[in-house]
């Protein structure tokens, strides 16, 4: 299951809190729309907390249009890796233009783009995404 929450500040930046957790091996991942009300133009920063996911790296995949599955390559524009046991932040300077106006995301333990179902369960991994309108 995935959960998103967003905050918009007065200058138009959008902070999206995105977390995803799965009960076990073999559960299909669901791609979530990580922003639902704003027209996004740029990506500013991403923070991923992968400290509670055991011995698994985590990958946050972001699309700039709605993908059918997590194995869809069309409009897959970004992958951010959080090695096992880490919490890290990517800051992009200057902010990078987005090809589309929305972001869809998923967190998985697989780097292989063709795998639609993870080999390993993903415990709760949280990502904060800063974009702007």
């Amino acid at each position, binding site marked *: 299951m995935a959960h998103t929450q967003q905050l918009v500040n007065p200058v138009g930046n959008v902070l999206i809190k995105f977390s995803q957790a799965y009960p076990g091996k073999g559960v299909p991942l669901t791609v979530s729309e990580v922003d639902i009300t704003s027209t996004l133009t740029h990506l500013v920063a991403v923070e991923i907390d992968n400290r509670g996911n055991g011995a698994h790296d985590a990958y946050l995949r972001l699309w700039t249009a709605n993908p059918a599955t997590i194995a869809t390559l069309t409009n897959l524009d970004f992958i951010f890796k959080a090695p096992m046991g880490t919490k890290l932040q*990517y800051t992009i300077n200057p902010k990078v233009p987005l090809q589309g106006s929305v972001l869809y995301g998923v967190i998985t333990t697989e780097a292989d783009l063709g795998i639609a179902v993870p080999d390993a369960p993903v415990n709760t991994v949280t990502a904060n995404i800063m974009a702007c309108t």
Partner: protein
Amino acid sequence: MATTSSPQTTDLQTYILRAEDLDHNGEVDVLGTPAVIYAFEIDNESLGSSFLAMWNSGYIDWTAPEVLFRATSTTHFVIHVDNDFTFNEAVSIAQANINTGAASVVDVDVSIFAKRFPG
């Protein structure tokens, strides 16, 4: 008194790498060592999008990039990573016109600032 001269190697060794005209075949183990990356820069001078991919391994595999950034046409930016962005096997990089690594985009330069791992 004995003296020594540069270059000198210390345990705290950092690397600055610049890969000009990186292509889709990529560069394997660009630093020659496992490393922690602190920042990387993408300078896409072309009129098409470029996808930069990175792997923590000694080979290029476009079916499983561990890091992927789309740099739209004529964009130039730096990505800072604040903590523990560790490539404990090797740092391998490539860029292409689409995210499957089909063909190269001309005039894409990549720079990396990293520290040897373990330090």
